[in-house]
């Protein structure tokens, strides 16, 4: 065993981090995003639309309402496309300016920010919180801690309630909550999502980013030397040292080693050590350092968003192949998805041939085939549809060609198709069913099937 061996455990107890409050340009941006995202999240669930909830993912009835659009499980491709767009947007933003998502919009950041705000209101600033945690249990400490956790828990439960309110109508859910009559699954998900919010934003915080988030670990694949990351200007700052009355004259750099950048960091790292995987790109250290530099009358930007090239004094290229390719793919997918959404027909038809009896002979030796048409009216109003069939000479519909479907109704319609004997060779022939709304020419769907002659 070597002499420099140190004792180490396989497990490490988390050291509490007490981020200092910070004001500044980037903190303001984060708060704007906190307000923006959370007003949408907590408010949108209550918005009415056409006599229903504007955004409702009605899992029980497999219908998903987003304003005027009604999605069915068959539209899962749009969810896939949405996720692809989200992933590509993430790649693009990461390539341009690093972990923008992590620093400003990720729910983990947003809720941690809100929970920290509550913590500060109740327990005080960084120093007061450190002191409070160190001292023994007193009535004051007990009351402060209890009230903090109560407020956290209430906020977390409201979050869980809102979350469930997107799956089951929130106004009905609210009445159920008030009368303690929520169903078992509603209760479970309100408590579960509430617990996850409380646990992640109150207790886990940076541990989620460092140990749990997979995205954090593969983001570096999108980085290159032209990616803007939060950088400490080592050339300007070093050698660091406390500012004396005589100031910078003694060969010291601009960094006064005040430690503010470490105190404000929500993951507890020292940005001056360079880019680290723990850094979520929140720019709190930039705001903190800028304040200090401003007070000392020195130029801001000792810590700033800068590319590796810029720090090395080389030119930065924002529009490089990586960015252009991301933009190109993203634009193409958005355009295709938008067009597809715009051209989407609010009608779905599936044709299912009767399988046991392929063909039957009816009076006059004519041949009949029977099909089931699963017709799905995905609009929110009743509609009349006209069924037609084509593909063989003289092929005709021998059952009722008109069918009325209620709003968002899906119905199985048995359909009889008849052919004169001898119009074609025995065997299977391709035919097409077309279903068309009587009030709108554009709402039409054509589906293939086969007609069997014998």
């Amino acid at each position, binding site marked *: *065993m*070597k002499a*420099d*061996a*140190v*004792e*180490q*455990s*396989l*497990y*490490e*107890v*988390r050291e509490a981090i007490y981020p200092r409050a910070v004001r500044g340009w980037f903190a303001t941006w984060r708060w704007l995003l906190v307000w923006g995202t959370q007003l949408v999240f907590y408010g949108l669930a209550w918005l009415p639309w056409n006599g229903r909830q504007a955004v409702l993912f009605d899992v029980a009835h497999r219908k998903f309402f987003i304003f005027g659009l009604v999605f069915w499980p068959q539209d899962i491709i749009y969810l896939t496309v949405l996720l692809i767009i989200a992933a590509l947007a993430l790649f693009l933003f990461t390539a341009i300016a690093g972990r923008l998502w992590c620093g400003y919009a990720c729910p983990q950041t947003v809720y941690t920010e809100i929970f920290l705000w509550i913590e500060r209101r109740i327990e005080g600033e960084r120093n007061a919180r450190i002191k409070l945690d160190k001292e023994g249990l007193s009535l004051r400490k007990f009351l402060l801690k209890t009230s903090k956790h109560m407020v956290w828990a209430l906020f977390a439960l409201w979050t869980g309630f809102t979350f469930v309110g997107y799956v089951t109508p929130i106004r009905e859910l609210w009445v159920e909550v008030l009368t303690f009559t929520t169903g078992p699954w509603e209760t479970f998900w309100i408590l579960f999502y509430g617990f996850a919010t409380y646990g992640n934003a109150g207790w*886990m915080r940076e*541990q989620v980013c*460092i*140990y749990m988030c997979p995205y954090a670990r593969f983001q570096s694949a999108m980085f290159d030397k032209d990616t803007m990351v939060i950088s400490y200007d080592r050339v300007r700052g070093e050698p660091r040292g406390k500012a004396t009355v005589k100031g910078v004259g003694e060969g010291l750099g601009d960094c006064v080693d005040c430690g503010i950048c470490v105190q404000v960091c929500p993951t507890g790292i020292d940005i001056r050590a360079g880019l680290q995987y723990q850094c979520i790109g929140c720019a709190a250290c930039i705001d903190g350092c800028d304040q200090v530099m401003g007070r000392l009358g020195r130029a801001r930007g000792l810590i700033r968003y800068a590319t590796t090239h810029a720090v090395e004094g080389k030119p930065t290229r924002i529009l490089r192949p990586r960015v252009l390719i991301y933009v190109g793919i993203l634009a193409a997918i958005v355009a295709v998805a938008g067009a597809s959404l715009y051209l989407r027909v609010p009608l779905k038809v599936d044709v299912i041939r*009767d*399988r*046991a*009896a392929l*063909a*039957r*002979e*009816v*009076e006059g*030796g004519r041949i*009949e085939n*029977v*099909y*089931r048409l699963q017709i799905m009216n995905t609009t929110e109003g009743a509609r009349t549809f006209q069924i037609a069939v084509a593909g063989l000479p003289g092929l005709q519909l021998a*059952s009722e060609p008109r069918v009325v479907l209620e709003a968002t109704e899906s119905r*199985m319609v*048995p*359909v*009889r198709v008849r052919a004169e004997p001898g119009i074609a060779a025995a065997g299977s022939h391709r035919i097409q069913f077309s279903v068309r709304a009587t009030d709108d020419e554009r709402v039409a769907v054509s589906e293939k099937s086969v007609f069997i002659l014998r």
Partner: protein
Amino acid sequence: MSQFTSAFWDVYIGLITIVSIVACAVLLKMQSVRKPVESETSGHVWDENLSEYNNPLPAWWAWLFYVTIVFGLAYLVLYPGLGSYAGVLGWSQVKQLEEENTRAQAAYGPIFDRFAAQDIVALSKNAEALAIGQKLFLNNCAQCHASDGGGSRGFPNLTDKDWLWGGTPEAIRTSIADGRTGAMPPFGQALGDQGVKDVAHYVLSLSGQASDSIRKARGEPLYKASCSACHGPEGKGNPAIGAPNLADRIWLHGSGEEAIAAQISKGRVNQMPAHKDLLSPAKIHLLTAYVYSLSGK
């Protein structure tokens, strides 16, 4: 329920399970002790110069492992997991199925019961009852009778007014619940090839179709002797025994001389299976109303 004939295997599996869980706990405990570490990195090197730091795991991570152990032990106490031990909760797949069936019955039973007391003729005009009836029909009957109830060769058309066993609500209900067996004996031996053909031509003439007048004349006495007992002197059939009407143009097993001759010569047993063990009386009631409505259009 154990698949093993010897209790040894129950004990064997139970022991392996318990010992594995305990071993995991011991391993976890051993790893929590501080140990001297020689180097900052794990010692593995990839791609010439990529090495991995020996960073410790967060402590709550270890607690998650302990939670899984506690969960596993609690599970083994509550549920069947250790050999033939049934668990404190007494859970079994069969029991769960029964519970779910009971719940489904409680949830959907009233919907069917609401219609069970109503008259079939009235129900056959009730859109809601027919919508449920159609779903039952598509699931249980359409495989043979086709999705529109129009049947096919060998499977009666339920949308016309021609009924083998009678078209009253009671007759339809009996057909669904108890099933029907229509049996026609073979006459090939008794009549001979020519006799069969002669009878076939007479049968064709019953529905006014073109037939050979000589064969028809020869077939008539044969028909009266062999067929009229069941199919009636005028070929009108007999719903009491399911004998088809031969005087209309509806042919269950195919039209034309050849098909009719084959039927006479070889006979046939045609069966509708009984559904009383498969469907509840309330569902059969709704199906009866739906089938009744098919021919009323």
